[in-house]
């Protein structure tokens, strides 16, 4: 069966964007 990679890649990029957004929020909220 052919491996479907696109959803995994989107997931990784999404998690990274959310993590960076979370870190940004942390900096703003707790400053």
């Amino acid at each position, binding site marked *: 069966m052919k491996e479907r990679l696109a959803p995994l890649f989107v997931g990784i990029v999404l998690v990274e964007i959310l993590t960076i957004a979370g*870190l940004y929020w942390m900096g703003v909220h707790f*400053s």
Partner: protein
Amino acid sequence: MSWIDWAVVAGYLVWVVSDGVRMSKRTNEMEGYLLASRSLPWWAVGLSVMATQLSAITMVSTTGQGYAEGMKFVQFYFGLPIAMIILSVTAVPFFWRAKVYTAYEYLERRFDSKTRTLTAFLFLLSRGLSCSVIIAAPSVILSIVLGWNLTLTVLAIGAPTVIYTMVGGVQAVTWTDVKQMAVIVGGILAAVIVLIVGLPDGMSVGSALHLAGAVGKTQALDFRFDLTEKYTIWSGLIGGLFLSLSYFGCDQSQVQRYLTAKSVKEGRQSLFMSAYVKIPLQALILLTGVLMFVFFLFNKGPMLFNGAPLEQVRTGARAAEYQTLEREYDGAFETRRQAAVALASSDGNDQATLQSFVAADAGLVAVRKRATALVKDATKADYDDVNYVFPNFVIEHMPVGLVGLLIAAIFAAAMSSIAAELNSLATATVIDVYKRHMKPEAADSHYLLVSKLATAGWGVFACVAAVYAAQLGSLIEVVNRFGSYFYGSILGVFILAIGIKRANGHGAFVGLIAGMATVWVVATYTAVVFLWLNVVGAVVVTVVGLLVSELTRVPIEKRK
């Protein structure tokens, strides 16, 4: 340290060695010993990839950075998830399907022997030295903080690792990495819980982070584009991407992890684990450091955490000066503590209270800086303090039992990295040097024996070099910097190999030398920070490699 803590550390060592040896199967043949007969599940390989990257230096140094500078260092890892995506469609299928033992073996198939030999040599040189540093750095810290003998500490970390790596090969490395990751994460979580429980009565984690945030320690992101600034979002995303591509795609200590996976799919999934988990894990380790900062706002720590040279200063010609600084520190600590209490009990909008806390913290930091300068001046030697904050907190403030767990976690972090490096050093030594240049035709059992001897040989070298490296503190930094000189350049060679069909062996070889020379010039004569050197190296190798390939291309009619 209590006997319970000793028992925890001893129990960990016995468990990890016996388990490593017990879990190894079919190690009586080369493929089983070096590649686990390509049979391991993705989650074990994924944890091994993470455990290899996370060394004891990361553990004590990252928490120390969190304490001193806050969350900024997390940006270093921003390029990693993107690198994993790229590698999952390039390096993983290429190496796995090529059925190679080492990444450098592939370079000979694609280019020529000289390119393979040079890259393998660079790997052996840098990883051989870094292996000794990985043993030396935590050994120095633990021997100072716990008062242990340095050589015995090196042996306590190095000897068990050499034994299970030599006996069980890559399977022992992987299965112990799985357990070691559990010990490391368990240790970090235990430290976080102790730090949260240790907050003053009535103080929430949110209030604690507000205190840390008041002096900028919760600011993780720096959006400035400045090539001389160590950690910015751009150096992390771009420089970190190139560094991760090189480390996970071209460094045998990592390539060998996913070569042991059952299939290409499982190899990919093992890298995806890091892509998802690495940044949150590093953020948690840094947060531990930030919480330690809050802890030491209310609990008085020493003026300087690295106590090794302090006796010499206290009894030397500058003793009176140092005593004066200690008295100033006592006052500065009390002023800051009161300011922290005032700020925590205010609603957070009181600017005067906030300013007085910021000023009090700056006052205490200034005293510590003057003390550091005094120690450096009095001892005429380098002085590192940041790496001692976490071990000091563990020994002085963690409850009995958990001290042992955290020491075991530091051991685990060191041992997991050392084991993978010894295993990959032995593989490259046997496959790229011994079998390629010295004895090409021999029985499988012969190469297996040489692999075990090579593991032991590199282990002994790493331990002996570690004892010397530990005595020459600055050597550790030199070795760390040394690797960054050719990391990007080696990546450039693999870009030519995998991505550019027109590239040839001459191009790759000349490009590699040009890349390393350029990186050396940029690193020596400019203030560009090391993460960008990876980009410089990779780009120069690719461009020069392509040009030389074009110039040395033999026309088709001449080939006939």
